[in-house]
């Protein structure tokens, strides 16, 4: 009797699960049947926006539904990330996550979200490819000469970052840590402000993509690339690994995330389509123009990637003693 009840309950649960699965499958098949919101945690006009716009355009074409960008800037990405984490997990709110919002911010601030538990990864949106630049007025012509200069003149070089606790600060901390050099960190409000002081040599170094047009114009020297492969526009500039500093890149990467609890089938559907888009020549050209490459990844690979990056960032933050407040 008891057993039968249990069986009955079990069957009921199973039946309910099948029904739910059935509607879920219908949901997935029709997905998306209304516009999808894509939250960006920064103000319009910046690097994240530059990556989000072509993606929104391509996704809208691919799915026949509008993918609408909603810029929720503020508090270094905190506000937008929180808003994304607390959105309904129905596949109609997605999040374009800059790596710093998932790796750096939660390590340094109390965040109202958990970078791993609050989100379900969908696909890689792009990796930034750039490196350290130096104002030519200083003298050194390449990475080695700059290192020698920094060692001979401790504290004389100043590096402009896009702000405290950004990837661009961590790149400097990593360089200082690995090469045992003393370079002054000057935080700015965004990379445009820093570039404004780099060109007249008020600071001497930076590591942001907005400097690259000035490298092309011969106004700045690109010393290296913080990425496993070289930059297509600067084939003569070596990567950090080639220079003898492996695992020192501090990668800056963007990913699509959904609020945790989003149906896995929707995530799979999006993942396949996104990786497909990333492989098209048109998207590759659009990405290269903004100094981005898009490596295809499965959601599982992305989780591993995120966990590894959080761990590496934690080690670096502790070693370099990076703090907020």
């Amino acid at each position: 009797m008891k057993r039968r009840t249990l069986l009955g309950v079990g069957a009921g649960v199973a039946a309910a699960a099948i029904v739910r699965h059935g509607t879920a499958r219908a949901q997935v098949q029709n997905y998306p049947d209304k516009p999808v919101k894509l939250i960006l945690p920064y103000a319009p006009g910046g690097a994240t926006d530059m990556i989000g716009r072509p993606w929104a355009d391509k996704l809208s074409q691919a799915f026949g539904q509008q993918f609408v960008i909603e810029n929720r800037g503020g508090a270094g990405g905190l506000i937008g990330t929180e808003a994304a984490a607390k959105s309904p997990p129905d596949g109609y709110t997605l999040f374009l996550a800059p790596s710093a919002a998932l790796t750096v911010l939660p390590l340094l601030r109390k965040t109202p979200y958990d970078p791993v538990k609050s989100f379900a990864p969908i696909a890689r949106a792009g990796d930034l490819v750039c490196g350290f630049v130096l104002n030519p007025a200083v003298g050194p012509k390449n990475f080695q000469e700059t290192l020698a200069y920094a060692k001979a003149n401790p504290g004389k070089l100043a590096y402009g970052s896009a702000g405290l606790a950004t990837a661009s600060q961590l790149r400097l901390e990593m360089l200082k840590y690995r090469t045992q050099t003393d370079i002054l960190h000057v935080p700015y409000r965004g990379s445009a402000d820093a570039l404004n002081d780099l060109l007249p040599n008020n600071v001497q170094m930076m590591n942001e993509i907005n400097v690259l047009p000035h490298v092309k114009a011969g106004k700045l020297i690109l010393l290296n690339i913080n990425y496993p492969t070289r930059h297509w526009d600067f084939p003569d500039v070596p990567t950090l690994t080639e220079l003898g500093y492996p695992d020192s890149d501090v990668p800056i990467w963007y990913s699509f995330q959904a609020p945790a609890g989003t149906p896995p089938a929707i995530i799979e559907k999006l993942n396949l389509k996104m990786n497909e888009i990333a492989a098209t020549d048109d998207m590759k050209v659009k990405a290269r123009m903004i100094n981005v490459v898009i490596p295809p990844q499965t959601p599982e690979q992305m989780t591993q990637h995120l966990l590894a990056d959080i761990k590496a960032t934690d080690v670096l933050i502790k070693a370099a003693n990076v703090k907020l407040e």
Partner: protein
Amino acid sequence: MELSDLLSNLSLGFSVAAKPLNLVWCLMGALIGTAIGVLPGVGPVATMALLLPTTYYLPPEGALIMLAGIYYGAQYGGSTTAILINLPGESSSVVTVLDGYQMARQGRAGAALAIAAIGSFFAGCVATVAIAVAAPPLTQLAQQFGPADYCSLMVLGLVFAIVLARGSVMKALAMVFLGMLLGLVGTDVNTGNLRFTFGISDLFDGIGFVPLVMGLFGMAEIMANMTNEERRDLVTSRVTGLLPTWADIKASTAPILRGTALGGLLGILPGGGAVLASFSAYTLEKKLSRTPERFGRGAIEGVAAPEAANNAAAQTSFIPMLTLGIPSNAVMAMMIGGMMIHGIVPGPQVMQDRPGLFWGMIASMWFGNLMLIVLNLPMIGLWTRMLLVPYRLLSIAILFFCCIGVYSLNNSANEVLFIAIFGLLGYLFFKLDCEPAPLLLGFILGPLLEVYMRRAMLLSRGDAMVFLTRPLSAAFLGLAVVLLVIVVLPNIRKAREVAFVE
């Protein structure tokens, strides 16, 4: 640059800008810009962000011409609300409020609007030529400014803010400091400390300028009008003449010229350029005037000079964006976004690689300004008629648009609440006879002063002498001291006289 080069560049630019379709985009931009400028709170940044995806489907020239039109169109529109309902639409039209609104109350709204449009038009034309002729050297000039120089310039600006005030210097000083304190709210750039945020994440980036202005000016003005029967009718005397008289134009000519020069120069500086431009132009006119007591009571020079200055600055702020790819404000960051969408990487190479686009955009600014003045002058009659709308209806409409505008900035409901808080504060200031304009300038310049000062100290490795050894910085500081003495001395003397009388 050779003259023949310049002429061939300009003719290329005009041939691009004068294409019928580009003229249409230019007109669209100017129209949208005027509309959002008039609507309080809705600014060019939010509008451009909204329109950015649609520019995908335009040719790059058309897209950028339209986006640029929105920006300078908003400068024209912004002065309309400043003059008519005491509500600055943009940070650069804060000073226009001082005399523009007084003129409107005296029934001279038409003259104020016309002079604002004419001043803006003249400044826009001059600044367009300045960009064409002198963009590279002006860029060089802006690059001479180091953090120490900016810091001293901000000190000078804050001293200007005190001169601005109509009544007591002590009150103005207090308001400047209060503004600076409000500006401290948010994340400290150098340490990452959260200051006075009370755990509200909407405050992590500081108090927003728009909710502050909407509250202090818009809300407070409405409350003041509601509680005061005599004030309720917006126009205290009959509306006289829609167009300025010859005397008005004569009185405005020199201020417009000076405002254009000052605005054009300060506009190239990043950050507070346009704001600094408009109120230093105002201060300059007040100091040069033989009747400074008229300022703040409806002096037409007080409208003409800052309006010319802010439009000149709006236009020259394109220079660092066009020549270096460096955005000097949020609007220019949007322009860069617009370029990137079309595969144009902003930077020093744009001028060589895309001359049609570069010069076409510059030439379109002249067309845009022409369209704006043609649009705006006949509209003045319509705008002034708005003052005849019963205030109980108008005030609700103003509140409504303020709330929508603020919400559209960051999709944040908290910021709408901030309007109410600052509205109460503004009403208190009204009762205490304290002017909110110096507070706003302290609010804008104070944080810049702090950032530049700490950056300068960091780069000089802690040596404070850097402020005196850099010639530009020393000159600004010297000027600030002189100005302060000029302002304070008569007050001290007056205070003594009062003391002796007692």
